[in-house]
């Protein structure tokens, strides 16, 4: 027998599997599970978006599009970015429609990284970031944030992590998994460091529409930042279009043109008919986005109050659909907590350490699920916590 592993590249073989994968395999086997582990909206894509897409298939839009996507769609994206965040990107040469924000991130790293160059990743962070940097030949440098700072990175932390090889810093607001929202002051502090040390800033704004307390400010709109910022966004979260795999990247022309070369060789273009749905989303989706926003905000308020009430301390996240409570007072690791909660009470959450070392001691709970499910989940988690406390007391007595 041949050992097929010998055919693997070193990069592929050494790439760590996602910490979420393992958990998924266990939870997927079980019945009657309430999942707070889902990283996507619980809404179905609004009908008018689906309807436009169906019509475009019926009308025969089945060919390739221009490499950066339909100009009509890029024009809508450009209008949206201008109206919503006051940043101007020329639809002709500063925007590429991608296969999700995921591909946009991949393009960004590949376009800017020389072998060994470092990207600062503010953790806890979306699981794909370090791997994408590695695959692009760069080196991910994790910068862990703290709950007492609301999981916001401080300028000092950034400066400490800098080396002569640091090329870029990646930020994500609102954040997955902490829900942390960076307001203008927070962004300005990061921008100052970036300008001082001549860094590129890649900003993942996929959750920008899911912001609940303050107005969203986009990094590229800050003074001195436009030229060094790569703006990444998409349709997945705002319009409940995760399965469509549509996103986009906007940046200064030279960066976009480099990304476009990579995009045309690896992907050609995003699916034609789905781009018609995306046009409809940007043109007529605003009301539905706001309705979903309101619904998430309510659920956020409910779950934050409830978790704090039953003894899992968490801050109120400004956006996305995640809360990131501390489980340190249970004495369990994140992994143990999540495993036992799943086994005993059939509630799935994601252990915080799946998002980086600084996530240890926390769990990610997604509230993108119905109020009925959330209420039941709280009852079950409460029961679970009580069972832990009882056990801990018993142990103490036996000793």
């Amino acid at each position, binding site marked *: 027998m041949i050992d097929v592993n010998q055919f693997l590249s070193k990069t592929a073989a050494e790439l760590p599997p996602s910490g979420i994968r393992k*958990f998924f395999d266990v939870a997927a086997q079980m019945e009657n599970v309430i999942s707070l582990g*889902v990283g*996507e909206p*619980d809404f179905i894509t609004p009908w008018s978006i689906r309807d436009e897409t169906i019509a475009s298939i019926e009308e025969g839009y089945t060919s390739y599009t221009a490499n950066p996507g339909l100009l009509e769609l890029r024009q809508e994206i450009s209008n949206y970015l201008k109206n919503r965040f006051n940043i101007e990107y020329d639809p002709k040469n500063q925007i590429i429609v991608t296969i999700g924000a995921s591909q946009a991130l991949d393009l960004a790293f590949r376009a800017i990284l020389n072998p060994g160059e470092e990207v600062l990743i503010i953790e806890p962070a*979306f699981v794909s970031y370090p791997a994408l940097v590695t695959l692009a030949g760069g080196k991910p440098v994790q910068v862990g944030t703290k709950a007492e700072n609301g999981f916001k990175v401080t300028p000092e932390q950034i400066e400490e992590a800098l080396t002569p090889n640091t090329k870029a810093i990646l930020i994500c607001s609102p954040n997955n998994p902490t829900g942390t929202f960076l307001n203008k002051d927070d962004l300005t502090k990061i921008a100052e460091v970036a300008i001082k040390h001549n860094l590129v800033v890649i900003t993942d704004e996929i959750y920008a529409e899911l912001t609940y307390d303050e107005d969203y400010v986009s990094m590229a709109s800050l003074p001195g930042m436009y030229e060094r910022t790569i703006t990444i966004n998409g349709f997945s979260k705002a319009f409940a279009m995760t399965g469509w795999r549509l996103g986009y990247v906007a940046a200064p022309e030279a960066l976009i043109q480099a990304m476009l070369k990579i995009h045309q060789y690896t992907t050609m273009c995003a699916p034609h008919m789905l781009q018609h749905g995306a046009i409809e989303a940007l043109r007529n989706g605003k009301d539905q986005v706001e309705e979903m926003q*309101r619904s998430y905000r*309510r659920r956020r308020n409910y779950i934050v109050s409830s978790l704090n009430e039953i003894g899992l301390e968490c801050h109120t996240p400004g956006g996305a659909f995640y809360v990131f409570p501390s489980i340190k007072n249970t004495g369990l690791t994140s992994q143990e907590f999540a495993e036992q909660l799943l086994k005993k009470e059939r509630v799935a959450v*994601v252990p915080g350490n799946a998002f980086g070392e600084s996530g240890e001691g926390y769990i990610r709970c997604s509230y993108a699920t119905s109020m009925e499910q959330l209420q039941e989940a709280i009852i079950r988690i409460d029961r679970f916590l009580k069972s832990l406390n009882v056990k801990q007391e018993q142990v103490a007595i036996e000793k």
Partner: protein
Amino acid sequence: MKLTKEELEILYILEENHRLSTGVIAKQTQLSEEKVEEIIKKLEENKVIVSYPAIIDWSKVEGQENVIAMIEVNVTPKRGVGFDEVAERIYRFPEVSSVYLMSGAFDLSVTVEGKSLKEVATFVSEKLSTIDSVVSTRTHFILKKYKHDGVIIEGKENKDRRMVVSP
């Protein structure tokens, strides 16, 4: 009536599901439970919240299947009271579940519910058409309900198709 942001938010919540406890609504809105109760009471007193009915699919209940007709009614409005008087005469019948004044080709849209086709037909011919100001009626029986008051009765989309855990 001008409502505050909190009052509006509570209306949106109740419109979607009025069975949530005030405790849950308090958490959702970050208000105290007393404040939520006070707001709901005020909205009820002002008839902004009119009632809390459940949407029931009677066609699923054996022996309770009912017949619903939507009736286009033309009337002669009366001097001084316009359509209100005849509308009132119609909506007082318990068989009538809704009455709307309409623009366009007819005046009143009346929904009538009964146990059988015959019962509804009798109501229309003996009660409705015989009202003085009623000039004519056209009766349309409902064959199947797909969506009622914003709620899809039996959709394909009710199932959660997401994976249980995802990044």
